């Protein structure tokens, strides 16, 4: 029981990180109908530059983390401002191509500015452990799960119970009409991208504190969060987030049952099987027509 409990806890924690990250993807997709392939690298900027500032430049850790988060927020807003908004209408898929370029650019620039090696990150509570019913729980696990639950609930309430949420959903539905009804669509859009940048930064810092930090570590993470979003549907709210947590649990169960190297093939097998078997109406986006 202790073993299995430990596995489940690890899975739920990883899954919560996927879910929190995916929340940032979802709000951006729902407001601006675009995918940001460089999203993981935005988070990487926060963690990697924070590491650089506290470890190489000797700044206090909290200050370095704040600078990192601020950079991520600025970069994510800039991606929308400089690139996504300028995509001509009627070219579906160009958002992925453009952000693919930004992905490459950010990776190369960070590698050039800092270096290409992996570094241990400040632990942020991953070392403080207690035992609950035979399961070792670290403070980091608690922070991750708690933060995810609070953030997701807050986002849900904000979107569905406040006038700000109504404006957001209105501008997602039809920007022109929302604008005519007095909603400041552009400001809302920029705010969404900024908040998404904040979420990416927090997740990336948490992931770095549990693993290590370099210019590439967020890419596998991004792939899994995107996969959860793809299975759950990017225009929904609860289903993709639940899928994200489940994916984390599934991955750690696969690793536990089949060995440490089984994670990647198990995830690939899962998406192929899910996409092949699940009825089309469950996995397709509702508003497929973007013409």
């Amino acid at each position, binding site marked *: 029981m202790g073993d299995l409990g430990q596995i489940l806890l690890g899975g739920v924690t990883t899954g919560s990180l996927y879910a929190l990250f995916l929340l940032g993807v979802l709000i951006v997709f729902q407001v601006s109908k675009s995918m940001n392939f460089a999203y993981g690298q935005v988070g990487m900027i926060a963690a990697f530059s924070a590491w650089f500032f506290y470890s190489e430049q000797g700044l206090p850790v909290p200050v370095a983390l704040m600078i990192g988060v601020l950079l991520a927020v600025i970069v994510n807003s800039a991606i929308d401002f400089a690139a996504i908004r300028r995509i001509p209408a009627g070219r579906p898929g160009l958002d*992925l191509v453009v952000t693919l370029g930004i992905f490459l650019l950010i990776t*190369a620039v960070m590698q050039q500015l800092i270096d290409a090696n992996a570094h241990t990150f400040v632990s942020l509570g991953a070392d403080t452990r207690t035992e609950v019913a035979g399961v070792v729980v670290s403070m980091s696990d608690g922070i991750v799960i708690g933060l995810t639950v609070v953030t997701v609930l807050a986002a849900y309430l904000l979107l569905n119970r406040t006038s700000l949420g109504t404006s957001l959903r209105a501008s997602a539905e039809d920007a022109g009409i929302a604008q005519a009804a007095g909603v400041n669509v552009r400001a809302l859009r920029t705010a969404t991208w900024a908040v998404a940048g904040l979420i990416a930064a927090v997740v990336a810092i948490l992931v770095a504190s549990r693993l290590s930090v370099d210019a590439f570590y967020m890419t596998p993470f991004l792939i899994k969060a995107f996969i959860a979003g793809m299975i759950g549907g990017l225009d929904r709210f609860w289903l993709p987030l639940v899928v994200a947590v489940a994916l984390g649990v599934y991955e750690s169960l696969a690793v536990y049952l089949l060995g440490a190297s089984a994670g990647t093939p198990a995830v690939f097998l899962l998406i192929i099987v899910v996409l092949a078997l699940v009825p089309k109406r469950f996995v397709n986006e509702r508003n497929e027509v973007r013409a």
Partner: protein
Amino acid sequence: MTGTTMTRPRRGGKNPTVGKGRGVPRLLTRVAVFAVIAAVPPLLFDDYWVFMSAQVLAFAVATLGLDILYGRTGQMSLAHASFMGVGAYTTYVMATNGYGPAMQLAAVIGVALIAALVVSVPTLRLSGMRLALVTLAFGELLAWAIRNTTDLTGGTQGASVDPFLFGRLDSSEPLHAYLIALVPAAIATAFAVHLGRTQLGRRMLAVRDSELAAESVGVAVARTKVTAFLISAVYAGVAGWLYAGITGFIAPPDFDLFASVYLFVAVVIGGAGTVLGAWLGASYVVLMPEVFTLAGQPNLYPIVGGALLAIVALVVPDGIVGLGRNVWRRIRGVRGDEEESK
């Protein structure tokens, strides 16, 4: 959406009205131009640049394949380099078991087809964006497979591949490698050109421009997308086979996500949807790192590549070929006006 359909009529579309009289000389002209360009490297370049030219030929097969998928069908694959890797590693495994190049090629095509079927069939009956994400996972899977089969594939250290031997041609000689690569590259080009005139090629364009419209006029959208993906995977596999034979050494970083992104950069910069663009892209992806190395700034290549991809996609979505076509049209347009005013 209609804009792209309106502004990009395929030349081939007008051909039936032109009649057969002009088709043959035109084909001969094209073959002659191709032959003249193909003769330049072996006649004028030294061994090293002939070797680089041979690599351009291999990568041209890859970019032509990606162009069929992305440029013509509008589907995005982020694992095109991984499919090259499938080809290259199949070649390696076949070569270590004593099979010659012809058997290697047959195995490469078979394995590429199977891998592409597994990736595309469940994915492509759904929306195109999903394909991009599943191909990402496929790239991860290939990297994992290579890491965990060190005995078979050489693992992260890479592996040296025996050169191809066709009669007296030996692909470890740059000139011979160039001549060997010329044949598949020419066939791939001819097929890609011809594809634009077939029903399948036009179905692909219809799917790219509007899936909904394509479906409403009876195009089997899913089948067209899967066919495009299979063709592009075979192209990538053959490119991997050539790459392994020409360079003689393969390693996982040659086929990772970044390599796939570079191929994407190549197709977009060259000009998506055109054969010429794919060739320009292949030259870019092979020669640009060399240029930066010669300039003493090899680290600039990825930075410039990323910036170029974003900027070109936003500002000149049709790449170099589109840019050239616009300039050509403007020149001709100006001349036409002058003639009219006379």
